[in-house]
């Protein structure tokens, strides 16, 4: 099930008009285009952002339009001064995007897969996250890093991870995990317009997912979760694609008479603890479904916070369904077991209901 646009519009605190059904991929593209139209300080850079760089004279333009075609057409509209293909040098261009953002531009940089974060992590952790603080508030760093997460494609350990939890650990960084076309557009706009550094996580398994999206620019609030299914027996918190694993499990569990409330986290920093607490006050049970590995994860953070703050209301221990504490295996025979799936969620819920 997907969220209706009405709910979505209400959540955004706005009235949606001119809405059509588009893919996540298209929603991202539309957002980038609109934000670049609205603010000439917005630039975007990354590997294959246009593609075939430097060959305009040979009629090559936009050879790739992004590794997943999210940036297609931008270079034609905004030119190569604002849409920059980069050499394969993430430390340099992500660092440069942070530097540019602290000096008047509003730079968006793409890291092709989050697994590659190691080569440029210093720029995020020691520069983007800390500059404002260390410099006593003298600078703003309105920087957005777009990157990709998600297993399930037989892409093995260096192209499949879902490292969003680590970013929430660093004071100074924000992070969003959109789950459909509507949130993909609204949260990207929010990330770009925000004056702090934001990491935007696209799930590889969601690009083709279609949903209602308003034509005009709109912003969803950073740090706000949303309820995508109401229920009374147990709260399921999903992150990115896992939200849809939760709703699918909820649908099945409803047939067994178990009523699940499903919350789509949407933001890993700030975390909307209050929204989750409120739901748990009603359901008295919690399962967090997280595709990242479990130790020091978003799932453990949410479970521990709920245990601390609404312990007295709980009828069962806050629980986690996550990937195991291993890298992502290549062979499907193993990868299929690696990711949280409906059946693991259902088993966990049933166990908690029977306590």
């Amino acid at each position, binding site marked *: 099930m997907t969220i209706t646009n009405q709910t979505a519009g209400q959540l955004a605190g706005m009235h949606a008009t001119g809405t059509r059904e588009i893919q996540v991929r298209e929603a991202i593209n539309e957002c980038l285009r609109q934000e670049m139209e609205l603010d000439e300080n917005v630039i975007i850079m990354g*590997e*294959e952002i246009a*593609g*075939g*760089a*430097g*060959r305009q004279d*040979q009629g*090559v333009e936009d*050879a*790739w339009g992004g*590794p997943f075609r999210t940036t297609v057409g931008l270079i034609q509209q905004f030119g190569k001064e604002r849409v920059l*293909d*980069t*050499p*394969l*040098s*993430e*430390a*340099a261009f992500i660092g440069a995007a942070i530097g540019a953002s602290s000096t008047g531009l509003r730079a968006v940089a793409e890291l092709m897969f989050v*697994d*590659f974060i*190691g*080569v440029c992590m210093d720029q995020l952790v020691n520069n983007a996250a800390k500059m404002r603080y260390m410099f006593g508030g003298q600078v703003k760093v309105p920087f957005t890093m777009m990157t990709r997460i998600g297993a399930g*494609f*037989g*892409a*093995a*350990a*260096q*192209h499949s991870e879902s490292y969003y939890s680590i970013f929430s650990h660093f004071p100074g960084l924000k992070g969003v995990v959109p789950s459909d076309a509507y949130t993909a557009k609204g949260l990207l706009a929010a990330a770009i317009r925000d004056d702090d550094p934001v990491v935007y996580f696209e799930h590889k398994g969601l690009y083709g997912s279609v949903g209602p999206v308003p034509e005009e620019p709109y912003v969803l609030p950073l740090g706000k979760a949303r309820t995508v299914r109401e229920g009374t027996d147990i709260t399921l918190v999903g992150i990115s694609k896992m939200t849809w694993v939760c709703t699918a499990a909820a649908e099945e569990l409803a047939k067994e008479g178990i009523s699940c409330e499903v919350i789509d986290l949407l933001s890993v920093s700030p975390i909307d603890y209050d929204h989750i607490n409120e739901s748990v006050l009603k359901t008295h049970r919690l399962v967090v479904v997280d595709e990242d590995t*479990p130790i020091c994860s978003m*799932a453990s953070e949410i479970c521990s916070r709920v245990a601390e703050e609404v312990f007295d209301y709980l009828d069962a221990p806050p*629980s*986690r*369904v*996550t*990937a*195991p*504490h*291993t*890298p992502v*295996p*290549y*062979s*499907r*025979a*193993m990868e*299929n*077991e*690696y990711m949280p*799936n409906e*059946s*693991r969620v259902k*088993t*966990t819920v049933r166990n908690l209901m029977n306590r």
Partner: protein
Amino acid sequence: MELDRESILKLFKTMATIRHFEERGIPETGQRGMSASVHSSAGQEAVATGVCANLTNEDYIGSTHRGHGHCIAKGVDPKLMMAELFGRATGPNKGKGGSMHISDMSKGMLGTNGVVGASIPLAVGAALTSKVKKLGRVAVAFFGDGASNQGVLHESMNLASVWKLPVIFCCENNGYAMSTPSEYALSTAHVADRAQGYDMPGITVDGMDVFAVYDAAAQAVARARAGDGPSLIECQTYRFYGHTVFDNPLTYRSKEEEDHWRARDPLKLFREAVLPQGDITAAELDQIEADAEALMEEAVKFADESPLPEPVELYDDVYVNYPRELLKRGVNMAV
């Protein structure tokens, strides 16, 4: 460098094996739904072959995402590689790694690698092992033109030079990093120009000519074994296909350019160089190709008949030593 007849034939055999592995193995892998991470090295056979022909089984290589050729040239069994691509338990990585992580420590093959540039310092480290333990081995770091723009290459070249390590930096300049032309992304005309900054020899060779690559590598290996330190070799080559099977290269390069390089197919250049000398016959080379083709038939069969890993093998080899139960504690795994 004088090569005997047998060594010359072996160069051809290695190149033919790589070519047939790519031409057969990649579509077969795709048919089994595992093509997300597979990159063909067809067109680049002369580089892996010419370099590795100078190495012993004990020497080391570090490889890239486009690493099937490096593996084969270093002696990894194509049957086992095919099994790895198919995600089978009989692969050298037991199905954990796939195309981008094939490794075989028994052959000094330190792994293909999915993070561009990441295997370069591993080769430097292997050279350090050789130096510290006085093993007399050399290490080769293979990397692409794209990777030559990663900071880690520059730090690794400096470190290897400062420590005079027996390592060869071998750049396969195939003109592109995905669709990004190297002439756009590189500040210098040649990757080899960068050697100057790190006080090591740097040369650019024709990477479609296996003999040219062999000679350049022979010099660099001799220098490394003599304790004189690292070298940089840039091999100008071309990938015949797209970055992966999903990419249509004609969106960023021309048919004429492809035809130009296809005409310089390393297997064809080999025939043109060797046959006029009269010592080796076309029939011999044809037979080698036929054998390579037959080997792939066997490899596909072997891989298909091999068992899949058990799902619980997911937990094997994360650590040497760690409480296994903690790998899945409290997260409600099904296995």
